[in-house]
């Protein structure tokens, strides 16, 4: 019991505890002097540990940037396979302003994939604002022929085990996850008016019991596809690094 008391109590004086008396302040004991001295010591600790953090920051910076780029590329490769483009698409980008049709409230980056110099696909983000619990963030690849290459959910808060099958990692159907219905389809395969979940009279399947999440995703995909198709040329023509201006 005494052991526990010794460990828990923080005020119990012991021989190794430091007190103000242990280190006599040089040059008098006025309150001002003691305060100044203490403040200077604290300042030195701040400088020393800030320097340590700065050193770590510079040592880890290249590795952190490399893995951030790799992560971005991994996400892009999930919606557009590597054999469909041959340019450095992380460097062929334009900035999209906040766009209501895509559900975006802030600037995002659109990546452009090209093969042999020809336009191959654009990769853009969209947000479905009407998920069951908040926004669902999507990444889409739209091929130059007007079809979607694929769609993935990058962020969502849908109920685990119910609506979260919109994310293929959570989908129990591993061979053909729900979201792969959007692979290689465009408005030619599924007309605009039928690009809805079956419950709304469309042609996109949904699982019974959880309609809200797939409905939100499907509608957001349709809106994003409409938006992209109506300005396909402009998206590819704009010089890299510029911001898309909407009239």
């Amino acid at each position, binding site marked *: 019991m005494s*052991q526990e008391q010794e460990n828990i109590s923080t005020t119990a004086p012991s021989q190794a*505890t430091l007190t103000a008396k242990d280190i006599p302040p040089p040059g008098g004991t006025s309150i001002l002097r003691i305060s100044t001295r203490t403040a200077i010591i604290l300042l030195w*600790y701040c400088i020393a540990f800030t320097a340590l*953090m700065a050193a770590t920051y510079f040592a880890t910076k290249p590795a952190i940037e490399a893995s951030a780029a790799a992560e971005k590329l991994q996400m892009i490769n999930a919606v557009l396979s590597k054999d469909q483009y041959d340019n450095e698409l992380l460097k062929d980008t334009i900035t999209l302003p906040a766009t209501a049709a895509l559900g975006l409230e802030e600037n995002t980056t659109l990546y452009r994939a090209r093969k042999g110099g020809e336009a191959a696909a654009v990769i853009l983000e969209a947000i479905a604002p009407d998920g069951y619990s908040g926004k669902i963030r999507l990444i889409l690849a739209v091929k130059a022929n007007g079809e979607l290459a694929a769609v993935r959910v990058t962020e969502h808060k849908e109920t685990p085990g119910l609506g979260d099958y919109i994310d293929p990692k959570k989908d129990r159907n591993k061979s053909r996850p729900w979201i792969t219905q959007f692979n290689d389809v465009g408005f030619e395969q599924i007309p605009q008016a039928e690009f809805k979940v079956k419950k709304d009279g469309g042609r996109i399947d949904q699982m019974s019991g959880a309609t809200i999440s797939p409905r939100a995703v499907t509608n957001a995909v349709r809106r994003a596809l409409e938006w992209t198709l109506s300005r396909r040329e402009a998206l590819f023509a704009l010089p890299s690094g510029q911001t898309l201006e909407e009239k």
Partner: protein
Amino acid sequence: MSTYREITANGLWKQNSILAQVLGMCPTLAVTTNFTNAFSLGLATAFVMALSNGAVSLLRAFIPYEIRIPVFILIIAALVTIVDMAMNAWTHDLYLILGIFIPLIVTNCIVLARVEAFAAKNPALKSTWDGFIMGFGLALVLGVLGLSRELIGQGTLFSGIEVVIPGLHGFQVLPEDYNFLIGILPPGAFILLGFMIAVRNWLDARATAAKQAAARQQQLQTA
């Protein structure tokens, strides 16, 4: 002065940071959805605690008594930031899962508690060991909690372990479509933790009762 044996017993059982002191509930509830996440965050905490206890113990002669708490917090925050950046750089996949919890180590009061209660008055090696074993005790409890929650919640064991140790794989113990929501959601953690604390208290009470009975027996014999 406590011996290494006592320090170890304190960290793992007698003063276990979760089961006995009930400190650090935030990571306990947030990361224990499976064994891999829970135990990894536990080990990261143990690492930070060993570092912070060691650093404070080495510097304890140069830390004025009046400003020791701000200096302790500064040291802990700096170490956590460094671990955070190092993990982001060199174990990126693990960082993607634990990333948002690493800064929470700062707010886990067990770190400051051990620095103040132990490292500020003990030599560096002992302090480092105390920090590590306290953190390891925490990691063990988080691990058990994570293991039971993933088994009850989604019927798997060690899922996601390939992120930490490539080559290993988790098991699907129960049928693929098995699902029990409360295991995955935070209330499940509260309920299970309650059971674990109860078991610990029961074992302790039994040990104390046995000791008292033995003492009484001895008294009777000598009398």
